């Protein structure tokens, strides 16, 4: 579904990605783990068209997308819940979800029914429907960020550190929800610091170190790998 080959990204003079390649197949949950600054967010942001690669290719369903503007990439079916959630704090929960459906806002009935679906997935958001997003707790904001990304009706969902800064019981439910979303047919590329949890729900994983892919294996094997256990699972 998504194939990245030899992607190299610079921020000014700083190299963030050094010719990385990775692949996500239809229906999978693929996770990308790695220390802070390894280049996980940069990969995600390149896929969404928020940063322009210096070289390399990003192919989605057979079409190169690395030159497309960000809003076109959303339209062809790639949604993202960004690192740090970045909900529109000055708008209500409902308005945030509506913005996710920006490209089809005129279809009011369809949008409303999609919002209802989000409320079944995240009942907490229903209770907070008319509240401004800035007043939500961290966990609720994360749910809103995911819900908002789902409102773009993605076939591939990019999640950048969805469990960051959440209480342990919330982390559990976020991972449960990611699994549910995947079961409903959405392919997921999941970036996580919480490698343990991420590898448990993922099919495959990539380990990034300073802009390079150093390991690419099934999640099962990565969980067993000694280096991974030492470096990312705290053992």
């Amino acid at each position: 579904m998504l194939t990245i080959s030899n992607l190299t990204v610079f921020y000014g003079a700083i190299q963030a990605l050094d010719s990385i390649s990775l692949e996500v197949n239809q229906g999978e949950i693929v996770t990308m783990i790695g220390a802070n600054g390894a280049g996980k967010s940069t990969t995600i942001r390149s896929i969404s068209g928020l940063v322009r690669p210096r070289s390399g290719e990003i192919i989605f369903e057979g079409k190169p997308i690395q030159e497309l503007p960000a809003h076109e990439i959303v339209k062809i079916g790639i949604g993202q819940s960004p690192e740090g959630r970045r909900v529109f704090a000055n708008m209500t929960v409902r308005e945030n979800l509506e913005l996710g459906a920006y490209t089809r806002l005129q279809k009011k009935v369809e949008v409303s029914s999609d919002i209802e679906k989000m409320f079944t997935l995240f009942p907490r958001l229903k209770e907070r429907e008319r509240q401004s997003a800035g007043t939500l707790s961290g966990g609720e904001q994360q749910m809103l960020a995911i819900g908002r990304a789902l409102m773009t009706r993605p076939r591939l969902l990019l999640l950048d550190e969805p469990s960051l800064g959440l209480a342990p019981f919330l982390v559990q439910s976020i991972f449960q929800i990611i699994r549910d979303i995947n079961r409903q047919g959405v392919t997921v590329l999941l970036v996580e610091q919480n490698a343990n949890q991420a590898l448990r729900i993922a099919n495959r994983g990539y380990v990034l170190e300073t802009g390079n892919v150093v390991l690419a294996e099934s999640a099962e094997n990565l969980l067993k790998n000694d280096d991974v256990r030492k470096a990312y699972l705290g053992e």
Partner: protein
Amino acid sequence: MQALLQNLIYGVQLGSLYALIALGYTMVYGVLGLINFAHGDVYMVGAYVGFYACTKWLPFQDISVHPEAAWHNLGMAFITLMLAILLCAALGMLIERFAYRPLRNGLKDLDAHFWGFVIALPLTAKFITIASPFGLISFIGVGIVVGYVMRPLIKHLASRIKLTSSRLNALITAIGVSLLLENGGILLFGANPNFIPNLLPERKFNLPGGISVQSGQMAILAVSLFLMISLRYIVLYTKPGKAMRAISYDIEAAKLMGIDTDRVISFTFAIGAGLAGAGGAMVAAFTHIKITPLFGLQPGLKAFVAAVLGGAGNIPGAVLGGILMGVAEAFVAGSKYVSYRDAIAFCLLILVLLFRPSGLLGKNVVEKV
């Protein structure tokens, strides 16, 4: 008491005009974090559109000779207003497209060509008079050719300078565009002041208490209020309005919603410039003020102060700031300190910024450096 009320009315009318211009500053600041110093010059262009429409383009009739033509002229005045809004909106979009967008997305061939064209204008204007259609066509033709020739040079220069959307770059660009419009105005409209003669019937209404209002003043106030209310509706309830609010909060998150941010930014410039253009045309038509290509400087600066006063990026704040400044100015102008009328704006600004650095209605956020 009578003088007080009279000053208040004048102040609110003046303030509604500042508010109208301030809205453009604040909306652009909201979406891009950029102070568009060329905005006051768009107001000037609006005044010239008013001038040309009233004296050359449209069949206004002299009401001192044909008093019965009042309604006809009123209709023409409405068309003038529409023309000013549309042409200035187009100018605003042009400024955004060629001056500010390359700072965000890089300088493309078309941008380089455009700037080559602009550089060619004053040179060609020396040799070709644009009054005839043939002159205009050859003028544009020469511009296009020169633009094409200059393209590689401009692209080369742009690659030597780092084009980034840093605040300093944006500020320098804004000042450049402002100078370009002012000097372009001198080239195109001439440096001599022009004014619009009496085309509309002007009445003075006497209200109880010895207060009087002029019909022209009231028209400016009414049209400004109408435009501001329309803007509020657009921003709160329409699709591009929602996109504008999303962009002003977080432009990247807005892109992830599928919002074509370049288009919405262009729309924002169009609206802001259209409002300023309406203000310029109304002032030119109703107050018969002498207009020159530098005539946007003073009101532009005051409207900028009004936007900061209310809280940059905050739409109701711009309206509040504008009205406040208009009223303050009216009271100073009506007192014995009349020579300080232009200074009061800046005194107010210093006072407000001392106590509320983010403006009256602005959120108290610490500016990231």
